């Protein structure tokens, strides 16, 4: 027969201070784990929102980032005339030649300067993305004007609307702020393709070409025909794959966070073992009584194990609560593929919270096992005689 859980709950309540202190010790390691997972989760969200499942990014052969890539004008002409490309509002194929570079600007986190992606594109490129203006207007073709992403405007004091920033061959005026959901576009600066190319002496060759296919099978066919065409010397990668690979930019922080959480959990675990041994010692007489009443060794073992796990569930919940305010925090991490900063928000989604809770419960079960076994193995008589 099992001992009711309410018995364990009442025991935890009686020793309030010890319970809370032990739980808080474990809660902090859970909070750090949840924070690291939430960081990667947030980064993943940004990249997922950036990619359009029907779009294909064409880079140079062997290239894995837009920054170090060149696609020739002839190749662009060939790409543009491929079959299966969606037609845009004005009836032209949705194929966007783009030039990518970076500019170093002082940011809120890094006053010494951080790289921001500069993208030169045409109106077709804008049409292909789910992005809208939230302030000002779009840049005019032929003008030294730029539009900055929402995160750039927020995190870089020099990149506010109405100001000028310097890159390429001179000053550029910021005429608008754009927002593309929680996406990488929020961390970019956009300008007119011809103007930007001119500044980087790259009139003849964009960095990449973005294509939109009419449907998924066409996308596949298009990808294969581009990869197989040796004259193009190009690599075609779906936008989804391209951005998914970039989630690894959060890997160092994630690794550090998990490493810290595990070591802290070992420390917290020892403390939990201590607390449970104390609980067993304190209730020796009760254990004897329970055994006399007919509860088996297994019931006692299960009861103490459950108590330890209840303690750790409390710790898990506390840890998740501690990490919750992070959802309102925006931070940035360097993206090695684009050699620039990508801003994102922490996301403590259900999966992340669940991982934190599981972590705590496993810890509770491991920490509670030895004390619970020692409780179960107590001799009835000596337990009752214990003062």
């Amino acid at each position, binding site marked *: 027969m099992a001992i009711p859980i309410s018995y364990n709950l009442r025991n935890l309540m009686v020793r309030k201070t010890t319970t809370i202190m032990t739980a808080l010790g474990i809660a902090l390691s859970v909070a750090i784990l949840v924070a690291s997972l939430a960081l990667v989760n947030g980064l993943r969200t940004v990249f997922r929102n950036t990619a359009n499942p029907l779009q294909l990014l064409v880079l140079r*052969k062997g290239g894995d980032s837009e920054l170090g890539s060149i696609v020739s004008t002839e190749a662009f002409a060939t790409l543009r005339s491929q079959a299966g490309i969606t037609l845009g509002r004005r009836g032209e194929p949705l194929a966007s030649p783009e030039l990518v570079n970076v500019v170093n600007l002082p940011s809120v986190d890094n006053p010494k300067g951080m*790289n921001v992606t500069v993208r030169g594109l045409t109106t077709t490129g804008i049409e292909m993305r789910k992005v809208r203006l939230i302030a000002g207007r779009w840049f005019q073709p032929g003008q030294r004007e730029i539009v900055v992403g929402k995160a750039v405007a927020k995190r870089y004091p020099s990149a506010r609307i109405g100001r000028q920033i310097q890159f390429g061959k001179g000053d550029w005026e910021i005429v608008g702020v754009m927002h593309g959901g929680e996406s990488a576009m929020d961390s970019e600066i956009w300008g007119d393709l011809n103007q930007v190319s001119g500044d980087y002496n790259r009139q003849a060759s964009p960095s990449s070409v973005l294509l939109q296919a009419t449907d998924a099978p066409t996308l596949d066919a298009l990808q294969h025909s581009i990869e197989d065409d040796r004259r193009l010397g190009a690599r075609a990668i779906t936008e989804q794959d391209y951005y998914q690979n970039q989630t690894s930019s959060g890997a160092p922080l994630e690794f550090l966070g998990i490493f810290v959480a595990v070591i802290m959990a070992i420390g917290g675990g020892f*403390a939990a073992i201590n607390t449970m041994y104390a609980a067993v010692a304190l209730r020796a007489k009760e254990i004897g009584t329970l055994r006399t009443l007919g509860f088996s060794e297994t019931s006692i073992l299960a009861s103490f194990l459950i108590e330890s796990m209840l303690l750790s569930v409390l710790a898990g919940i506390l840890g998740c609560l501690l990490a919750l305010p992070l959802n309102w925090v925006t931070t940035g*991490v*360097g993206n090695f593929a684009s050699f620039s900063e990508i801003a994102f928000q922490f996301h403590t989604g259900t999966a992340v919270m669940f991982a934190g809770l599981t972590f705590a419960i496993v810890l509770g079960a491991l920490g509670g096992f030895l004390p619970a076994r020692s409780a179960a193995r107590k001799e009835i008589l000596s337990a009752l005689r214990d003062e």
Partner: protein
Amino acid sequence: MFSYLPLVLRNAVRNRRRTALTVASVAVSLCLLGVLLALYRSLFYGGDTTPGQAMRLVVHHKIALTQDLPVAYEEKIAQIPGVRAVTRLRWFGGTYKDARDTRNQFAQFAIEPQTLFDVYPEFRITASEKQAFLSQKTACVASRALAEKLSWKLGERITLVGMPITLELTLAGIFDDPGVSSVLYFNWAYLRDSLPVGDDHRDMVQQFYVEANNKDVVSDVARQIDEAFADSPYPTKSEPEQAFFLSFVSFLGNLKLFLAAICGAVTFTILLISANMLSMSVRERTREVGILKTLGFSSGEILEMVVGEASLIAVAGGLLGCVLASGLCAAIAAAMKNAPGFVSAIKGLSLSPLAAALTLIIALLIGLASSVVPGLSAARTSILDALRYNG
């Protein structure tokens, strides 16, 4: 308080299991704190630098690393007082074999072979291999780490497929380098001549590496270089190599804040653990406290004993933690052997005496802080209550 040391010791080891668990718990957490302090130091203060690195500067475009500088700057920089040697550098993003295998990814730099070894005096290479590198235009040299990773032998043919050109290189030498790991250097002249005439990138480079005459003139040299080009179409930014690498560390995210927050959380956790354990054992001893008081011990003396016990346990945990931390630091340093150059400081990660001392001081402070509440409550217990206590 030392007159009670035997009693404090006996109390501390009375419940051996609890003391051992508490020491272990405090030790693990303090070990983490020690490692984080060591990590913080090596990332943001660069750990220990080689004398060669301390005298080295990086010159790049003021606006972005990706913007080019004219190669002609090299001569002007060489004439600036305090400059011992200067070499140009152009990044080459070529693909070696199957780029999807990350082992095949490494840094490729076009440099000037004559000056490379002047700017990097810590590179070790045999005279004959160096001569081979200088005499052959298509020759290249690789760091020992890279050559071993890809099992390259001298004379190895290395094809780097880039845009718009492909380079066919021959491995002329392998050099030993205490810092950076996977890197390949080849002759800039070969890259230049391979680019089509009229290509805008032909006479451009991205960085200059400058070795100054001594450590004290580094910042002055940096200022003079930047002043010389301030009004040109290609303004420069010069910084010590360490500061330059540090700007890449900021790429990993707001690590400073992250590390500081974790250190805070760890310290708070140890405080909780230690205070909790202490109040448990003090509560168990309530009756003993009553007896001690009956025997004439003052409240102050009882407080001293509790504080002493806590400090003893915390410092024991701190010492054990430092031992664990230096082991863990060595393990991390070994695991990071192939890390990119800008975090090269981590490869020498170790618990410095300062970090160890700081860890121990934190341990002692935690011992003191955690014993205040349980100690005071023990000291304040009235004799009658204590003797009547049934715990």
